[in-house]
C-alpha cells in the first residue's frame, strides 16, 4: 500500500462536449497534509475534485485514494473515506429538514439512531447552526445552506476532507469559525478556493491551476507572494502580504 492518501498520475479530462478541462495533472497528498487549490474561474478546480471522488473518470491517467485505485468497483470505499462539500450547497441538500440532511450520510452507514443524533448535533454545532435543525433547507440563506452542506459532510467523519469554496457566502464570523474548525481537523484536506487568506491559515501547500494545467505546486507562503506567477495565473497577491505603500510608510515612521 502506498503511504499517500491521494495519488494522481498524469490525469487528463475532457468533457463530453470536447472541452479539455484538465491536462496532465500529477500530484500526491500525504497523511496530515493540506493542499489548497487555486486558480482563476474555469481553471479546472471543481473538475479535479470531482475526479478524485470518481464522480467523473479521467480520460487518461490514474487516481488512487488510500491505496485503492478509483474505479467503479471501489467507489463505495472511496466515498466512505472522502467527504466532499460541493461548490453549490443546493446540490447537497435534498431532505425536508436540515437535521435529516445532516443525518443522511450516517444513516446510510447503518449507525444506530443515538449515534446518528450525536454526530448530527456535533456537526451542526461546529458550523454554528444547531438552532436551524428543524428548518427546511430551501428556506435557509445562502450562507446557512453552505454551513448545512458542510455539516452534512462532517457528520460522516471522513478520513479526507475535500471542500469546494467552503468560505464562499459565509459571513466573517462563520468564516472564522469554519477556518478555526478546519485547522483543528487533523485529517488531510484539499480545499479549492478563492479565499487566499484562508489558505495562509490552513494549507502549507498550494497548487495553482491555469487552464487545466498545474502551473505551480509548492509552499503557500512562497507561491502567493510571487507576484509574477500570480499575475500570470490571473490571480492577485493577497492584501495581507502585499507590499502596500501605506504599510511600508507606517513601518518607516
Amino acid at each position, binding site marked *: 500500500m502506498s503511504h499517500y492518501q491521494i495519488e494522481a498520475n498524469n490525469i487528463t479530462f475532457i468533457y463530453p462536449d470536447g472541452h479539455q478541462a484538465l491536462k496532465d495533472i500529477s500530484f500526491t497528498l500525504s497523511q496530515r497534509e493540506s493542499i489548497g487549490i487555486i486558480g482563476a474561474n474555469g481553471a479546472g478546480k471543481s473538475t479535479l475534485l470531482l475526479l478524485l471522488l470518481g464522480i467523473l473518470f479521467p480520460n487518461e491517467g490514474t487516481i488512487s485514494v488510500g491505496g485503492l485505485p478509483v474505479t467503479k468497483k471501489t467507489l*463505495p470505499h472511496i466515498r466512505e473515506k472522502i467527504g466532499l462539500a460541493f461548490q*453549490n450547497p443546493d446540490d447537497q441538500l435534498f431532505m425536508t429538514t436540515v437535521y435529516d440532511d445532516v443525518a443522511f450520510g450516517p444513516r*446510510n452507514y447503518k449507525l444506530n*439512531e443515538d449515534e446518528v443524533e450525536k454526530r448530527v448535533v456535533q456537526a451542526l454545532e461546529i458550523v454554528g447552526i444547531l438552532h436551524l435543525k428543524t428548518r427546511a433547507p430551501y428556506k435557509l440563506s445562502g450562507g446557512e445552506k453552505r454551513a448545512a452542506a458542510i455539516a452534512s459532510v462532517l457528520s*460522516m467523519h471522513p478520513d479526507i476532507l475535500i471542500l469546494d469554496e467552503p468560505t464562499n457566502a459565509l459571513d466573517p464570523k462563520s468564516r472564522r469559525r469554519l477556518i478555526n474548525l478546519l485547522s483543528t481537523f487533523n485529517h488531510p484536506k484539499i480545499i479549492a478556493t478563492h479565499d487566499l487568506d484562508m489558505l495562509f491559515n490552513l494549507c502549507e501547500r498550494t497548487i495553482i491551476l491555469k487552464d487545466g494545467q498545474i502551473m505551480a505546486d509548492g509552499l503557500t507562503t512562497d507561491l502567493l507572494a510571487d507576484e509574477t506567477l500570480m499575475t500570470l495565473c490571473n490571480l492577485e497577491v493577497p492584501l495581507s502580504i502585499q507590499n502596500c505603500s501605506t504599510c511600508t510608510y507606517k513601518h518607516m515612521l
Partner: protein
Amino acid sequence: MVNIAEALDNIRLLDALGEEKSTVHALHPLAKLFVTLVFLIIVISFSKHEISALLPMVLFPTIIITLADLPVLPLMKRVLIVLPLVIGIGIFNPLLDHRPMVSLGAITLSYGWISFISIMIKCLLTVITSLILIATTGMTNIALALRKLKVPKIFVLQLLLTYRYITVLMEEVILTTTAYALRSSGIKGIHFKHWGSLLGQLLIRTIDRAQRVYTSMCCRGFDGNYNTGTMPTLVAKDYIFMLFWTLFFIITRSFNLPMLLGTILTGVYP
C-alpha cells in the same frame, strides 16, 4: 411576475405539511399507507352507476383533514389540477349513454350523466386521499413503509426520485422565468420566440441538477435505501386506526348506507 418565495413555498407545501405534528401525523406510516390503499381499492371497486352508496366514503378524507389540521384550500387547488384530466375521461359518458336512469321532477338524469358524476367523485376522492397521505406522512416515510411492504427497491427509488425531480424542475422553472422577466422589461409572459431556447435550457439544467443531487447522495453512502431513522413499531392505536377504517370501508361497500339510513329514518321500505 410570480412571487418567488410564495411559489417555492407552494411547491414544498406537501413536504412542509408532512413535518407537522398532529394525531394523524403521529400514526405509523404503514398504518396510513394501508388504510389509504384499502380506501383506493374500495372506491375504485364501486360500480360506475353508484353515487349514493359512494358518498359515505367522503367521510374519510374529511375527518383526516380535520384531525390533521390540513389547510383545505391549498389542498383543493392541487386537486383542481387533475380536474381537466378527469373531465376529459368522463365527458363522453353523457354523450354516449342517453338511457334515462332517475327522474327528479322535470329533470331526467341519464345513465351517462350518472356515470360521469360517479367518475368525478371517484377521481376527486382518490386524488385528495393520496395528497392527504403525503401531507400527513411525508414522502420519505411513505417510501419507508413501501419498503416494509416488500415493494422492490427500484420502484420505491423511482417514486422518490421522481418526486424530488418535480421539485427541482419547478424550482428551475421559477428561477428561469424570473430571470427572464427581470431582463425583458415589462413584457408580460414569455415571447414565443424564446420558448424553444428557454425550454431546452430548462430541461438541460434540471437534468444536470438532478444528476448532481443524485451524485451528492451517492457520495454520502446512498445505496438505494432511503434511511430516515428508526421506523417506530406499530402500536395499539395504529391497529385500531387500520381496523376501524377498513371495517368502515367494507361496510360502506357492502351496504348502501345512505339508503339504509333513509329507510330506517322514514320507515319506508322499498
